[in-house]
């Protein structure tokens, strides 16, 4: 049976049929994509099928990304690539300056054929120092991060209770984890999920 990774590779290498095949898998996305076998990498070592950095430019279906370690990555987005920016999104929402993490298949020419691209995603923990109706002020390692509630997007998960749009149970002084989308070049984040232990 042809693996998801093989289909993704063929989508990049070979054109039409491969792209159709990858798309026919449905979204290569979030949970489903992670059953795909990845090559062995020595624990502790860099994962060649992963990239991080900020978008410098976008040409056709390729993101030119400068890694924080100053290494450039060419990240190819295909029909089946899953993109996230505060939630599932489309390729046209990617912007120069966005930070990203990407996972996919490294091609022989060094291009990363993307299974998933997460734009501006952050996952930070800290103490709630203040709450207003629109914002949570988070003390994250001594730095304030302004976390914005986004109507229709932001949810809270109180331990194992079902996700809720009601963030009013959060309290000043408690510790939370906030998954969200960074607003580039600011200390501000749009909230996707607040994880609260109670």
């Amino acid at each position, binding site marked *: 049976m042809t693996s998801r990774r093989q289909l993704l590779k063929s989508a990049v290498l070979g054109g039409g049929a491969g792209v159709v095949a990858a798309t026919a898998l449905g979204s290569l996305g979030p949970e489903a994509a*992670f059953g795909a076998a990845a090559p062995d990498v020595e624990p*502790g070592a860099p*994962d060649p099928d*992963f990239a991080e950095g900020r978008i410098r430019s976008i040409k056709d279906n390729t993101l030119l990304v400068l890694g*924080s370690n100053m290494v450039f990555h060419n990240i190819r987005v295909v029909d089946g690539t899953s993109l996230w920016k505060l939630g599932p999104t489309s390729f046209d929402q990617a912007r120069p300056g966005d930070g990203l993490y990407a*996972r996919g298949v490294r091609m022989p020419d060094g291009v990363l054929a993307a299974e998933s691209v997460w734009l501006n995603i952050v*996952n930070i923990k800290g103490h709630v120092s203040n709450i207003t109706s629109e914002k949570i002020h988070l003390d994250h390692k001594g730095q304030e991060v302004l976390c914005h509630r986004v109507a229709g997007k932001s949810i809270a998960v109180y331990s194992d209770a079902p996700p809720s749009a009601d963030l009013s149970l959060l309290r000043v002084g408690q*510790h939370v984890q906030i998954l969200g989308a960074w607003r580039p070049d600011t200390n501000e*984040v749009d909230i*996707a999920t607040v994880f609260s232990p109670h």
Partner: protein
Amino acid sequence: MARSQPTDPPIDLQAAVRGEVSWFCCGTAWGPCSSTGKGACGTCNSGNLQHAWPNTSDACWAITRPDSCGFALSRRTCGFQHRITALCSGTSVVTSIADCGPQTDLFCGERSCCGATCATDRIIDLTPAAYSRIASLSTGLRPCEISTP
């Protein structure tokens, strides 16, 4: 107050242990992660297959205090390898220790589930490269099982 490790046998020496797994950034990075640094071991990078463990040293244990949630996790130092299996997908990744964390005591009693399969308390954090091998980064938190490779 004096803090010391419990004398009971650490549970992760006897069998695999279940708990919650999240992800964190380290090394050179963008956004709120830009000031994070290379972690307690000095080797941590978001793109590497690494993890944080709550008991890498006395100083680490004094911060994370997994015992306050009932976990007697054993001392494991920089470079030690664990296998982390996502209970949602069954996929696993082997990573090595590069930092101290998570701060287990601040989330005591928290529980994550996949259907009827649940795990309680935060006992490991993965780098984005490692976490994205077993789950989407957008999930943020997942139940997992931790064992030695």
